């Protein structure tokens, strides 16, 4: 901790403030609890190593969301695969930490990665399309496009 800008107390506070958000972001990518926990840890380790001072809780949260999603993408790439199908995890749902009887979540996790993130940020976190565009470094129209396609696909799954 010698080289960190943050004291243990700071990190603990930030951790408890945002761990559920970071967990949801990581679960969206990894689809199981064990890998999700690894990536949550990696994200907060990056926070400890980070040389930035956050100026607000929103700033802090947005940084953690972007860092967590980048860490997950890197992990999936490093491991040379994309996260498995939802069915793979349902076989041992309890061990995998997959919430039981959650068909909506199953449908969301079947979406391609880029759609999952916009669905999560828009419907759960409540960011608007312009804010999501800034976080994902793409245009607002791309975000709207992804939301439209995600909705169509979810509609198909839920029929």
């Amino acid at each position, binding site marked *: *901790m010698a*080289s*960190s800008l943050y004291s243990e107390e700071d*990190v*603990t506070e930030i951790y*408890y403030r945002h*761990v*559920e958000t970071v*967990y*949801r972001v990581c*679960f969206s990518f990894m689809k199981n*609890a064990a890998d999700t*926990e690894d990536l*949550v*840890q990696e994200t*907060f*380790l990056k926070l*400890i*190593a980070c040389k*930035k001072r956050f*100026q*607000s809780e*929103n*700033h*802090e*949260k*947005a*940084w953690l969301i*972007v860092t967590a999603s*980048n860490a997950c993408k*890197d992990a999936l790439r490093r491991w040379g695969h*994309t996260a498995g199908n939802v069915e793979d995890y349902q076989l041992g749902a309890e061990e995998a930490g997959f*919430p039981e009887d*959650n068909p*909506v*979540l199953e449908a*969301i996790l079947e979406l*391609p990665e880029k759609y999952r993130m916009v*669905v*999560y940020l828009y*419907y*759960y976190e409540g960011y*608007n*399309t312009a*804010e999501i565009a*800034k*976080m994902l*470094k793409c*245009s607002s*129209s791309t975000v*709207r*496009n992804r*939301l*439209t*396609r995600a909705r*169509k*696909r*979810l*509609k198909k799954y*839920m029929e």
Partner: protein
Amino acid sequence: MMQRQDIFEAYERVKPDRAAKERMLENIWALAEDEDLMKRERKENIMKKQEKRRAKKVYYGAAAAAVLMLVPITAAAGHLLGLWNLGIGKQKVDIPVKTVEGEDILTPEGNVQLQEQEVDMISLQGMAGSPEHMAAMEWQEFLENYDTDGKILQEVGNAATGFEEEYGEYLCYTQEMADKIDEICEKYQLTKLNGFAESDSYEDLCAKTGSGDFFGSSENIFVTYGNAFYYADGTFLLEGTAAVTGENACVTDCQISRDRKGTFNGTMLNVGDMDDYRQWEYETKNGVTVLLANSDHKGLIIAETEKSFVVVNLLGDISGNSYDVSDEALEMLADTFDLSET
């Protein structure tokens, strides 16, 4: 029908319990205390660089002395000419501001800091003079002058507009926009995109769109399918990854778009500054003449066949924020992709 609240509730149930939270925090402290994180990071970076240097040395040592002849583009009839022949015009876009280390700079509100930049946009539908290209130009011109302050969109918000089914692919949110799409299609004798669907696999995409095995096969190149969608006429967009091994080793994310002639598709591609590209015509092993364009941030393989216009957009390693596709690797990729039956 799935509602916003259903999605919220589905995510609400994804959370670590108290024991998991404590376990993760304990692990974080254990890992952080085991070593100085910054030292470890620096050490890893040095090792990565050394490894890369060693790898390059091996490749160069084993390489045959092959010199790539870049054929300059000449304006001959029937040829693909150059990127400027696909140009739709310039557009102002927001580009993330980076630190010298290549990291995004965040604003106090936590958003990525953006800087407005003028970039060249190209059509993915056809060369200048084709009905598809002219239609794309006209639609772009309309968009540039429509709802410039975003007030109409703000009023519409994220509620359903009723245009989703027929005009959703053009992101229309008013009757005026929908009318313009109809006008353009009538003027250039084009049909609207319809029958959007997503494919489950590469094989499914080839079967549904009637395209041949355009991934092709090569001992040195591995192309993997990520996801794809297509339309009733066979227009599709696939996203995947291509890995080149050997002397010109590189890994790149890629998008392959095939637009059927006779259909209006307003999609454009931001290529940055066209002047940054080296461009040349190349005849692939499959006998297709393609336009190749390469820069330090993006590579393009462009082919026009009897029925389609195909663009392979090479983005480099997006997560690693790097691009290292050489001109030789670009030619190898062009040889691998079999665009003759697209």
